[in-house]
Structure formats: structure tokens, C-alpha cells
């Protein structure tokens, strides 16, 4: 409950923040929403020497659909902004389904989408969602800006591929060729619980034909699980009982669950399969917007 000592800076520009990170030589930590970082500091699981608070950098709280249909989420967009965004609810169903399931409503007012992706918690909802959506991050460092595809971003539990002097300033979700469909399901015992298993499904549909699909899992492995490989069996297909069963089994096979007090490995794998099916079935019967 009582954090250890650190230095605190609150830069007003991204450039200034990067300078501080660079000077921190790996001992500086970015503070955005802080809803994962601060609890870890309070429990003294984390002891950063330097905190770089980016909350006072203006212009990072945008949710924007570009003309090409791609979705851009700034580094200071809070979970609740996504939960309440009418545009998201109409155009990006995977994010719309996941947003209300992130932690609890009070945490959602503060925690950020991009921060959560960077935190790379194996239980995290947003890293899984981003993988399923085949998104990428725009990151800025002393040498300028680069993008990192989600498939290359999560390296392991709480480990990402950012350099110590880089900031993820934006998450980008590519435009669907057809219509974005999908969903997100999470088995938790109560609001705010760690997931026993979570499943993110992203679909790109034209009529009832699948143009593209993405799958990712949380809570069922040492890191966020990229199950996008499984999607190939759906491409060009319709969502039928047979295709749904086939892809659900393939996605479940990608899970790497551990047996623990939340359930056996087999149970968690089974939940993944059921959830994939449920999301796909819901999408197969929905009218196309």
C-alpha cells in the first residue's frame, strides 16, 4: 500500500517524454492510466526509479476512424471512452464487446487502451483484441517513429518489444475489406476477476462470406496467445456449423493453459472452444448492417 521512492516527471510533449526515458537508461517507467502499474508499485512488485507521467501531454486522447476505415486510438484513450463511443459500437464490434469487460467501471475511467496493450499481461483483454484485429502500434523514440505489428509486439508475460526509450503513441486497427464483425467473451467469476479464459474474435465479412478473421486468447497461456493461424479455414467460407466447429477446435488447440485453482488445462481449453463457437454463431445469425 506504500510505494517505494521514485523521481517523477510530467512532460508536456512527447519529445520531452522520450528524452526523459532515454536518460532513464531503462529504469524509467511510463505512467499512463496507471491501473496496472500503480497497484504493482503499491505492492512493491515494481520499483521504478523514474516515473514519466504522460497524462499531461495534450492531443493523445483521440478515437478516430480515418477515411480509409482504419481506426486510430491515441495513447491516452481510457477504456471507458471506448466503452461509450457510439462509433466504436457501430463499427468495431470486437472492441465494443471487450471494453465493458475490462476490469471494473471505476478502473475503466482511468486505465488506457494503449497502456494495457503495452503492459502485455497474459490476462489482458486489449493485447488479445489487438492481435485478433491484426493491429499495430505507432511508437516514437529518439530516432523517430516506427510501427510494430501486434504479432511482433508481445514477447512474453509483461514483456513487449518497445525499446526503453520509446513510447507507444497510437494503436491502429486496419480497415476491414467488408464489414467488421466479431466479439469478445471472457469467463470471470466476478467483475474485475482475472480471466479464466478470454477469447477475441475479429471478422471481416462480405455478406455472409468471411473475408478475413482473427483470433487471440488471454488467460490461457504464459502470454497472450496469437491464434490467427487458425483463421485460414474460414477464409472465403460461410459461418456454418461445420466451419465454426472446425475453426473453434483449431483455436482451442492454440491455447496453452495451466491447471490451477481456476480450472484444469482441459477445462480452459474447452471454454476457449465454446466461446469461439458462441461468438461465431452470434455473428452467423446476425443481420449484416
Amino acid at each position: 500500500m506504500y510505494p517505494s521512492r521514485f523521481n517523477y516527471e510530467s512532460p508536456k510533449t512527447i519529445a520531452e517524454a522520450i528524452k526523459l526515458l532515454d536518460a532513464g537508461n531503462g529504469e524509467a517507467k511510463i505512467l499512463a492510466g496507471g491501473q496496472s502499474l500503480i497497484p504493482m508499485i503499491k505492492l512493491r512488485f515494481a520499483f521504478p526509479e523514474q516515473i514519466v507521467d504522460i497524462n499531461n501531454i495534450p492531443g493523445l486522447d483521440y478515437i478516430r476512424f480515418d477515411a480509409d476505415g482504419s481506426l486510430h486510438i491515441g495513447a491516452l484513450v481510457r477504456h471507458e471512452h471506448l466503452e461509450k463511443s457510439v462509433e466504436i459500437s457501430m463499427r468495431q464490434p470486437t472492441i465494443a464487446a471487450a471494453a465493458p469487460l475490462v476490469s471494473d467501471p471505476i478502473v475503466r475511467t482511468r486505465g488506457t487502451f494503449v497502456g494495457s496493450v503495452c503492459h502485455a499481461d497474459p490476462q489482458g483483454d486489449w493485447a488479445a483484441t489487438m492481435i485478433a484485429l491484426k493491429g499495430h502500434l505507432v511508437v516514437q523514440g529518439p530516432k523517430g517513429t516506427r510501427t510494430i505489428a501486434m504479432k511482433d509486439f508481445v514477447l512474453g508475460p509483461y514483456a513487449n518489444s518497445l525499446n526503453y526509450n520509446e513510447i507507444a503513441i497510437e494503436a491502429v486497427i486496419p480497415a476491414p475489406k467488408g464489414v467488421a464483425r466479431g466479439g469478445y467473451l471472457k469467463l470471470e467469476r466476478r467483475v474485475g476477476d482475472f480471466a479464466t479464459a478470454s477469447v477475441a474474435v475479429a471478422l471481416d465479412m462480405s455478406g455472409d462470406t468471411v473475408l478475413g478473421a482473427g483470433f487471440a486468447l488471454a488467460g490461457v497461456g504464459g502470454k497472450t496467445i496469437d491464434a490467427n493461424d487458425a483463421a485460414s479455414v474460414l477464409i472465403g467460407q460461410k459461418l456454418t456449423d461445420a466451419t465454426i466447429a472446425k475453426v473453434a477446435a483449431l483455436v482451442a488447440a492454440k491455447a496453452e493453459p495451466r491447471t490451477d485453482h481456476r480450472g484444469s488445462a482441459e477445462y480452459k481449453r474447452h471454454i476457449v472452444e465454446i466461446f469461439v463457437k458462441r461468438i461465431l454463431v452470434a455473428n452467423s445469425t446476425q443481420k449484416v448492417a
Partner: protein
Amino acid sequence: MSSLYEEINAPLASDIPIRRVTINVNGEARTANVEPRLLLAHLLRQGFKLTGTHSGCDTTSCGACTVLFDGRPIKSCTMFAVQADGHDVQTVEGLASASELHPLQEGFKQEHALQCGFCTPGMMMAAKALLEENLNPTEDEIRWALSGNLCRCTGYQNIVKAVLWAAEKMRAELN
């Protein structure tokens, strides 16, 4: 408490970074010298003597410390006091005006929505944020909005009723 270093006589390492912050608390500018590591909840309680904000857990789970930060509910144990510099914070002590209680306060009493009272301030602040967005919430909307706040005594049923009571009164006051 390290929010007020002037009060501490013990020799302190000279490299401790101290920040001066000014926070608009319940409409009044309050200033303190704080170490960056000081949690906002602790500044409110020990520094500003606003002990209605409670600390109920170590893990950002219980919501007993919920306050409004620029109008939105946050868990004040999960924000450093320095982060609140220049911002608005509303605590339970700011709910009532000099002469009258907030409808939520009345509703909580009328509907027996509290027992030990420990979660109550956080619960009311979360409910206030809900009612500011939605003055006609359903029972499910109330349960959802309060699901970041734990109560051990009441069983929630009466808390839901209390928020409905307050919403009704606030709607009537608007008309």
C-alpha cells in the same frame, strides 16, 4: 505523513524529491508538499484530513477510496497525489451543501443502504458519477456502474434502491 514534510523532524535524505501541488478539493484550492510516491488517497486523508475517503484494499479492487477526478470516478489509492496537481477532486465531504444533504445521502439513509459505513463514501461517489450521466438508470445499470465498489454488509439490494430513490428525487427537482 510525508505529505507535510514540515511536520517531520527526523533527518531525511536530501535527495528526496518533494513537489508542491495545488488541488481543487471540493471547490477549495488546497496546497501541499508531497513526495511523488504519496497516493492521492493518503493526501486526502492525512494531509487534508478528509477521512471520509477510505482505504479498503491494496489491490485497486474495493473502491472504498473512490473520488471524482475532474468529474469522473477514480480509485484514489491508484493515483499519485502529484498527478492531481491542478485538477478537481470531489470527495464525500463535498456531497452535502451547508444546509442540505445530497439526494444520494438521503437515499442511502432512507433505504438502509449502509451498515458499517466503510464502503459508503466510495459507493456514493460512484453513484454520483452514474447519475450525472444518467438520471433515469435501470436496476441493471446501477448494478453495473457500482460493480467496481465492494460492500461486505448490505448485499447491494438496498444500495440499488437508494440510488433509484436519489435518481427519482433528482428528476423531480429538475421538473
